[in-house]
């Protein structure tokens, strides 16, 4: 049991990195560990973490999804437009997620059936759906979405911010799918070696398509969180979010080659990025230096991860 625990901690080396990060920041900025700030960090992390969980599915199969930022923008814009015209929030959210799934399906279909590289397909859909967002919004942010919609991003339930609850639920579902279901096992098998997975009778096309649908859905869900937090759906929402999501997955120890990794690591990776963002702000690091430090931390973490192999 003890050995087991030790093993599982060491499995997530990134967790050690996260703890060290927290300790260092809390020494420099005592406010870091305040309850209010912890809630703060978790809420900020939830936006990236939800996308990154979907991205983990894609990366576990050896793919990549660059279009998440655009999926986020287009589904959030449509949801905001619907809320303004009909006032029906739950239906707007369902439509947003459906749009996310649909774009994910287009990605997945082109990648699995069209045999085009994921990088190229999602690069193209990233550009296309950014354009669709501009057309739909006319380049103007959609705001005035009302108090009850704002509640999703700004209210708490039992002391926990709603975005954090959403993140926990999405994580729970993803963890269950990947570790307890046949689909999860097939997904790892496909990521490990696509040919042998196919030869052993797994419908690889179906599994591959589905990961992009899942990723699209999480991106749309994250779009709902972002939009309700700021009370406005901007045509520029989510630009470069794909990079933060990929960074979280990689920091969590998931291999870009596929077949290896977990969503637990992804959550830790997202937390590292979030804590770093928050910590650098709390420590008054000049914005000009912040991105240098962030880049270095990602590079170092991945280098160390690589060393074990």
């Amino acid at each position: 049991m003890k050995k087991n625990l030790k093993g599982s901690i060491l499995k997530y080396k990134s967790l050690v990195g996260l703890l060290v990060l927290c300790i260092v920041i809390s020494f420099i900025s005592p406010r870091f560990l305040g309850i209010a700030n912890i809630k703060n960090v978790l809420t900020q992390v939830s936006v990236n973490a939800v996308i990154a969980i979907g991205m983990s599915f894609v990366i576990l199969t050896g793919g990549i999804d660059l279009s998440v930022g655009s999926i986020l923008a287009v589904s959030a814009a449509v949801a905001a437009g619907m809320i303004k015209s009909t006032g029906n929030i739950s239906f707007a959210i369902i439509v947003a997620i459906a749009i996310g799934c649909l774009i994910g399906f287009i990605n997945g279909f082109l990648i699995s059936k069209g045999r085009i590289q994921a990088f190229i397909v999602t690069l193209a859909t990233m550009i296309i759906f950014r354009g669709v967002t501009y057309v739909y919004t006319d380049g103007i942010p959609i705001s005035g979405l009302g108090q009850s919609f704002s509640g999703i991003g700004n209210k708490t339930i039992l002391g926990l911010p709603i975005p954090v609850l959403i993140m926990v639920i999405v994580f729970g579902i993803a963890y269950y799918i990947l570790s307890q279901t046949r689909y999860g096992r097939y997904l790892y098998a496909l990521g490990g070696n696509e040919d042998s997975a196919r030869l052993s009778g797994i419908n690889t096309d179906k599994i591959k398509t589905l990961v992009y649908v899942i990723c699209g859905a999480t991106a749309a869900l994250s779009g709902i969180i972002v939009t309700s937090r700021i009370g406005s759906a901007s045509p520029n929402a989510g630009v470069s979010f794909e990079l933060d999501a990929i960074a979280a997955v990689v920091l969590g120890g998931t291999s870009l080659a596929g077949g290896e990794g977990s969503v637990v690591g992804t959550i830790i990776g997202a937390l590292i990025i979030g804590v770093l963002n928050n910590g650098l702000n709390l420590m008054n690091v000049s914005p000009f230096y912040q991105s240098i430090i962030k880049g270095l931390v990602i590079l170092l973490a991945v280098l160390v991860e690589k060393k074990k192999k």
Partner: protein
Amino acid sequence: MKKSAKLLSLMLSTVLIIGTMVGCSSQKATDGGKKIGMVVSTLNNPFFVSMKEGAEKKAKELGYEIVVLDSQNDASKERSNVEDLVQQGIVDLIINPTDSDAVVNSITFANDSNIKVITVDRMANGGEVACHVASDNIKGGEMAAQFILDKLNGKGNLVELQGIPGASATRDRGKGFHNIVDNKDGVKIVASQAADFDRQKGLNVTENIIQATPAFDAIFAHNDEMALGAIKASKSANKDVIIVGFDGNDEAKKAVASGDLSATIAQKPDLMGSIAVENAIKIAKGETVEKEVPVELELIKK
């Protein structure tokens, strides 16, 4: 495996500590009551970098610490920045919004934490704002009109290129311009059309005006971009007219130096930042401030 975890920790902490030292070297630690937060829409634009520098200089001069964060034109980043600043125990918050609507929830968040908010350059469409600091656009419009009338010895036909209809900059710059030129003997506005602050549209609209009403002596454009478009149009029509822009961006200043542009009304972002800090400190001390503080402009001519 254990070794690499240790190595990772060591490296992370080293990078962080070095980063903090480098980043903070210019700021000295002060007690909680003397820290101001500032969130700028983007630092990827010289205008806002000057604004930041002006604010930092003023804060240093008055013995306050200022923390400036960059929203990278992303409203959700802006929201996170505001939350992080509120955590730091700032006395008040200066914000240059990425978008007038999207900033409202961030401002409400600060309000809920009992932090007074000062907006700079762009207005907020909601929330409780103690003070708004922006260029005196009406005055700028008047300066442009006066410059044109002086050049024309008080007589002539004028063209006005307006910005996006309804935008506050369009309204105020136009109002100032009309304050001076309306009802003046010998002065006539022969065309007044919108070109949406856009260079391409400034070019097209000016071309159309040249076709429709070729007899004019001067153009006032509500911003430099449209003025630069107007220069192109009048050059290709071989028309030598006085053109005045607004903003004072680098390209416009160069055009003034080369004589293509007669003048531009330059905004002073550094002064905006500095005035915002002055007002923030007044508010922190419990003094009353004006709800809207206009910032002076500068006429740049050859």
